[in-house]
């Protein structure tokens, strides 16, 4: 199963590389989102710094819906997903492959969106902070990708996917959002009471729960009428 999941990852990464305009669009969308948030708050650097963590995670969340829906749009082109299902591929392997490639895709946003956010919101961060932030970004990306991949698969055959996906996804990822916002904010603004561990644990726990649960549900979502 791991080998098949890895084959899906390789295929998806190759497709991402070939269709580079997708990641560029998602990146630009994230940058514009960060810019709009900074305009909405105004020039007050204290408020901007306090809200920077929240805005950064929201930029990831909003960008993720674009990336996730697009990943299954490619599968629906010429019914490629059916071609995969007709192979003796375990749908669970298919899920974890898609999920991992979606996580990697969202992680690629971090090196661009983080410096942009730090610049817009006037936040200074040392090398350790950057490492912590990228680690948390990875957890948040994993926590968003797991239900996001499931819902993107469920809605991929619908014309209203672009509307339905965020409607279904956003309520479910509130715990991920909370954990990510709190822990990222603590990295950016300081953590005098050592709370970051517990928030990171919450984030990691939900990522694990979603990865396990959605992996079980995916075969029912992807196969017709199961």
């Amino acid at each position, binding site marked *: 199963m791991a*080998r098949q999941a890895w084959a899906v990852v390789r295929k998806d990464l190759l497709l991402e590389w070939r269709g580079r305009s997708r990641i560029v669009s998602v990146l630009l969308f994230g940058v514009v989102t960060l810019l709009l948030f900074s305009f909405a708050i105004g020039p007050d650097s204290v408020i901007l710094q306090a809200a920077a963590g929240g805005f950064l995670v929201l930029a990831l969340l909003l960008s993720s819906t674009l990336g996730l829906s697009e990943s299954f749009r490619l599968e629906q082109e010429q019914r490629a997903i059916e071609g995969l299902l007709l192979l003796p591929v375990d749908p669970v392997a298919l899920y974890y492959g898609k999920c991992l490639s979606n996580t990697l895709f969202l992680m690629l946003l971090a090196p661009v969106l983080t410096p942009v956010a730090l610049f817009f919101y006037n936040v200074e961060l040392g090398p350790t902070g950057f490492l912590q932030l990228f680690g948390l970004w990875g957890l948040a990306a994993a926590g968003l990708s797991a239900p996001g991949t499931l819902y993107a698969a469920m809605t991929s055959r619908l014309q209203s996917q672009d509307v339905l996906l965020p409607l279904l996804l956003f309520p479910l990822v509130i715990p991920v959002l909370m954990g990510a916002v709190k822990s990222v904010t603590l990295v950016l603004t300081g953590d005098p009471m050592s709370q970051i561990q517990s928030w990171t644990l919450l984030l990691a726990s939900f990522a694990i729960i979603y990865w396990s649960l959605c992996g079980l549900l995916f075969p029912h979502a992807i196969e017709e009428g199961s």
Partner: protein
Amino acid sequence: MTDTKTNTIAVRTVGLGKRFGKQWALAHCDLEVRQGQAVLLAGANGSGKTTLLRLIAGLHKPTQGELQIFGLDPQRERLTCRESLTLVGHEHYLYSQLTALETVLTWARLGGGDLSTDQIRGLLDEVDLGDHRNQRVGGFSAGMKKRLTFLRTKLENPRLILLDEPFSALDTAGQQLIEEWVDGYKVAGKTVIVASHNLPRAALLCERAVYLKQGQMIWHGKSSDMVQQMGLAS
């Protein structure tokens, strides 16, 4: 060719039906196909041929009736059933951004095998796509896509091959290639079910035929008799 046939039932349907919304695409279909047989599914557009093939492939869940593939329920034993069959349908199951070589490599990897580049080149040569191996399939003609998709019947080495309109979009050489491969599969004892509007060509490939009309199986018998008995001579 008959010596490769066995008493094993490759496909058995009992009262099989599929409804989409309020419309029955297929109803009360009783069919038995023995291993090694080649069966032609004939009928007008919307008669249920594609639905029947997709049910057999496990892409649709039956609304009513029973379906067995080599004695197994494809809804319960999905992976085992899918190991034993392949479907080449109207759609090509391709990613426009991948080259022909990458496409076959991806199918091979997902199917559990790992072919060398030389092996894939050999396979692509067989369908006259060797010179186009590094070309993205998005730029392929419909016929080239069909040839590439048809490679799956060799790659997956299934016992049951489902072909939906195999001759469409293909030039004469492509159609002959399909015929040669299907003949080879029959000799090898594989079961082939072909849905086609190209009755003269498909009837030569298949010894048995089933005629569907508005989702109902209204006739079955020898392919050679079908054209005459159903008044299909053009």
